[in-house]
């Protein structure tokens, strides 16, 4: 009788299949993933992959051709607008489907559907921030005009045309590894993607909560010194001395502002757990014909964002009878975001302006159904959020919406709370929630022929605030800081505001024509690098998280440069000059007491004495400076800030530098925890000694070279979950305050230089590759060039060049 062995072996087989087909025992269904016929091996794209294809879709109106050049950049030629965006959607999906899916799900607060329970807090915060609400409001605007709606529909149809013909064996690798399926595209997902950008760039540019806590520690006059609105060393985008017109709106400060607001010392526990990185900045500049060798303007832009594989950008040329544009596109959205056409070029940097305020809400009871406003109980709108969790039960959260906006923090959620008992109900008023259609700005910019077209295109752009820089072949150069910015009374929105009546609400918005702008200045160049756009004479109160150093460094070079060539601009984008260090190091060296230093310590001091102030990859001086300066700032501020357990804003490096240069007897130098009075000599010397212990540790563990400390890296979107799919520890220097702003996984996500000569001469590079498939040789093939500061020529192809040897494949689209 062989029944018994049969049962044993059959059970073993079933058991093996079950284990290998699921995540019951293994972290991934290995049988499903590794089988060669439908698992990840199918994603091993042949080195000679043939991208040629003939495709037909009933949604198309006419014929179209896509020519891929040797870098896999598609040059798309279509007969009309709808077809070109259908194909843009199709190609985004073909090469970048997973990132579009992941990013929009994350934007909406659905990351737990992919990552499981560890993402629940992230999802709650996204929902409490009102991300979906913002996208819904945006969608209404996007679909208002039938013509505009048709374009978004075409894009969506293009994405779905690709998804529909995708069989599981062809799913992008990440779907297989995560054991999930792609989700159909919709227009609201495009809106969500743009709101993701809005969060990235305008939800971390306020410091209301940290500022509220700072009020508890520092006196009003101290606050002004430590957190200045206008830094002394500021070099604004709009040159000093520019005369501003009288403001159309003069907001009135409420009579009770001092007692209820400025002098309110109540702490707050809540802290955004997923606040965007402060280094989400960028550089752009344009030099006019008077300063270039060719006599034509050159426009440059490098947006600093989280660097990822696949990259946030996808390079394309889009050509129709009425539009010919080239540049960086954002998979998930139609249009070119940063680029150039046959007449002009444009780029963007972040405005860093504060467009998000917090209001304290008083609920009638724990149900959050009613809140006190203008002397009566008002009904709030309760939004029940269901967060679906992979491998677990759904989590429900209730978010109350008030006249201000969603109540982000309340008794049930306070983010990454600090150890403070003040749990307050905080509603947010955020410009990103207002109905707007940012995408149409790019549709119009793609077609702009001159300055007026550019201005008309950007006027409707509301959030996030951007510095749109512009140059045309007719020689115009210009910059507008554009968004819908609240008109505030002085001090409004720096701290949590009372929300029990309308008196502290925004009283209006700065008229668009009063936004900071500049056109064709005599000095022949314009730059923006996240600094405050204007000096103190601008007639509005405009708080923000401004970054000063890069703008100063760019001005330092552009002021004296002449006969500029694109090559000069490449060098400037890759420049490592540390202007802040140049300002503060003389003070450090003056006050460090060398008599107190041992031989070993003096060795490290020599690195900084011999340093040329360049933060390049092999610089040791930059490392010594960085550690020393960080420790000195901690010496000065930590004792004061730690008077409170609450989360308090750290003064910026720029401000501390200015304060020390101005007053070496600065009272904050003294450590309030010690009986003696510390002087600048004590501070500088002690912090240097502390730094040396850290530096010696670096020395013993791999070396002092700045690249090893700064760790410029490009990670896969799933970060540490995908070891082997990233490009960590590149041989690059940089930092957030350096023009070449590489720091950790942050930095120039796209470098572009456009010389607007008769035949456009353009160059670009990004740290990634055109294919999102980790099994493709085009996945990360630009990374080395980017790290080395090399560029690719950007080829604005002419249809007659279809037989050019640079064309390696063609996809023909036709109606059918």
């Amino acid at each position, binding site marked *: *009788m*062989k*029944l018994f*062995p*049969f049962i044993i*072996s*059959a059970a*073993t*087989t079933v058991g*093996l*299949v079950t284990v*290998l*087909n699921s995540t019951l025992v293994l972290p*991934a269904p*290995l*049988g*499903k*993933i*590794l*089988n*060669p*016929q*439908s*698992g*990840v*091996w*199918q*994603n*091993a*794209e*042949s*080195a*000679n992959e043939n991208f040629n294809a003939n495709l037909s879709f009933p949604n198309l109106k006419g014929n179209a051709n896509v020519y891929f050049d040797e870098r896999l950049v598609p040059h798309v030629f279509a007969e009309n607008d709808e077809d070109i965006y259908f194909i843009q959607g199709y190609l985004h999906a073909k090469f970048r489907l997973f990132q579009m899916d992941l990013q929009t799900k994350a934007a909406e607060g659905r990351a737990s559907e992919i990552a499981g329970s560890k993402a629940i807090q992230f999802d709650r915060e996204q929902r409490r921030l009102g991300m979906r609400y913002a996208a819904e409001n945006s969608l209404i605007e996007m679909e208002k005009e039938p013509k505009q709606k048709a374009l978004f529909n075409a894009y969506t149809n293009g994405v779905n045309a690709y998804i529909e013909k995708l069989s599981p064996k062809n799913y992008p*690798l990440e779907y297989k*590894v995560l054991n999930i399926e792609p989700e159909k595209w919709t227009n609201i997902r495009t809106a969500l993607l743009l709101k993701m950008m809005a969060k990235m760039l305008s939800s971390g540019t306020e410091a209301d909560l940290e500022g509220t806590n700072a009020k508890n520690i520092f006196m009003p006059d101290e606050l002004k010194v430590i957190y200045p609105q206008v830094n002394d060393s500021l070099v604004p985008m709009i040159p000093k001395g520019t005369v501003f017109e009288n403001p159309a709106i003069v907001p009135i400060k409420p009579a009770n502002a001092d007692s209820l607001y400025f002098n309110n010392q109540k702490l707050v526990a809540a802290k955004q757990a997923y606040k965007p990185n402060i280094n989400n900045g960028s550089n752009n500049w344009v030099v006019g014909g008077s300063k270039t060798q060719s006599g034509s303007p050159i426009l440059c832009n490098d947006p600093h964002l989280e660097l990822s594989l696949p990259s946030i950008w996808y390079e394309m040329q889009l050509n129709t009878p009425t539009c010919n544009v080239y540049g960086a596109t954002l998979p998930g959205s139609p249009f070119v975001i940063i680029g150039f056409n046959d007449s002009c070029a444009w780029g963007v940097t972040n405005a860093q302006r504060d467009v998000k305020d917090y209001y304290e809400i008083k609920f009638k009871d724990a149900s959050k159904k009613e809140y006190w406003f203008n002397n009566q109980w008002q009904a709030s709108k309760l939004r029940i959020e269901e967060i679906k969790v992979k491998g677990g039960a759904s989590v429900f959260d209730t978010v109350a919406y008030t006249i201000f906006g969603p109540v982000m923090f309340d008794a049930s959620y306070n983010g990454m709370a600090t150890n403070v008992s003040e749990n307050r109900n905080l509603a947010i008023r955020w410009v990103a929630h207002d109905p707007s259609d940012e995408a149409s700005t790019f549709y119009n910019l793609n077609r702009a022929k001159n300055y007026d077209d550019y201005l008309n295109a950007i006027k409707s752009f509301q959030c996030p605030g951007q510095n749109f820089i512009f140059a045309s072949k007719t020689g115009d150069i210009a910059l507008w800081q554009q968004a819908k910015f609240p008109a505030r009374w002085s001090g409004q929105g720096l701290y949590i505001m009372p929300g029990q009546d309308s008196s502290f609400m925004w009283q209006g918005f700065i008229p668009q024509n009063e936004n900071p702008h500049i056109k064709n200045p005599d000095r022949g160049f314009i730059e923006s690098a996240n600094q405050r756009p204007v000096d103190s004479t601008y007639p509005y109160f405009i708080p923000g998280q401004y970054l000063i150093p890069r703008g100063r460094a760019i001005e330092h070079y552009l002021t004296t440069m002449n006969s500029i060539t694109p090559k000069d601009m490449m060098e400037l984008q890759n420049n490592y000059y540390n202007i802040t260090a140049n300002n503060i190091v003389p003070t450090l060296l003056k006050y460090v007491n060398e008599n107190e230093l041992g031989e070993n310590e003096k060795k490290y001091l020599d690195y900084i004495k011999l340093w040329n102030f360049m933060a390049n990859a092999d610089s040791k001086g930059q490392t010594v400076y960085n550690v020393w300066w960080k420790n000195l700032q901690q010496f000065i501020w930590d004792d004061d800030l730690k008077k409170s357990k609450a989360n308090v804003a750290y003064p910026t490096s720029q401000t501390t530098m200015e304060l020390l240069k101005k007053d070496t007897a600065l009272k904050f130098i003294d450590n309030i925890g010690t009986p003696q009075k510390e002087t600048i000599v004590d501070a500088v010397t002690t912090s240097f000694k502390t730094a040396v212990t850290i530096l010696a540790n670096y020395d013993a563990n791999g070396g002092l070279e700045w690249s090893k400390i700064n760790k410029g890296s490009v990670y896969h979107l799933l970060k540490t979950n*995908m*070891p*082997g*799919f990233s490009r960590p520890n590149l041989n690059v220097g940089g930092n957030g305050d350096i023009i070449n702003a590489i720091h950790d996984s942050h930095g120039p996500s796209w470098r572009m230089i456009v010389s607007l000569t008769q035949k456009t001469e353009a160059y670009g590079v990004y740290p990634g590759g055109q294919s999102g498939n*980790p*099994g*493709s*040789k085009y*996945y990360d093939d630009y990374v080395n060039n980017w790290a080395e500061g090399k560029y690719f020529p950007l080829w604005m192809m002419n249809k007659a060049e279809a037989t050019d040897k640079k064309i390696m494949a063609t996809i023909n689209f036709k109606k059918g």
Partner: protein
Amino acid sequence: MKFLTSILLTALLSFAACLYLPWWSIAVVAFIVAALIPQKPGKAFLTAFIALFILWFALCFFLSSANNNVLAHKVSILIIKMDNPYLLMTVTALIGALVAGFAGLSGSYLRRSK
């Protein structure tokens, strides 16, 4: 002769089945082949094991070679925690081989239990 036939038949039918069916259809194939072609249980296990080991190793070897192992380097770090494409191919082949082997063994016992 039965030995070789079993290997060939299992490999061929597994390949065909996986064109349309989930990966674990290899177990069904191995089971049926072993139930139809009479062999000792040990040999039934071995033929199914060898069939899938060769089939899966060959398939991923060819796919990966054309890819210059670009993908295999990355996936090996992810799954076997070391950068070794050929070890990943071996692991792949072993998974197919083990599943098919036990399915073949079951098929053989079924035949004998009649």
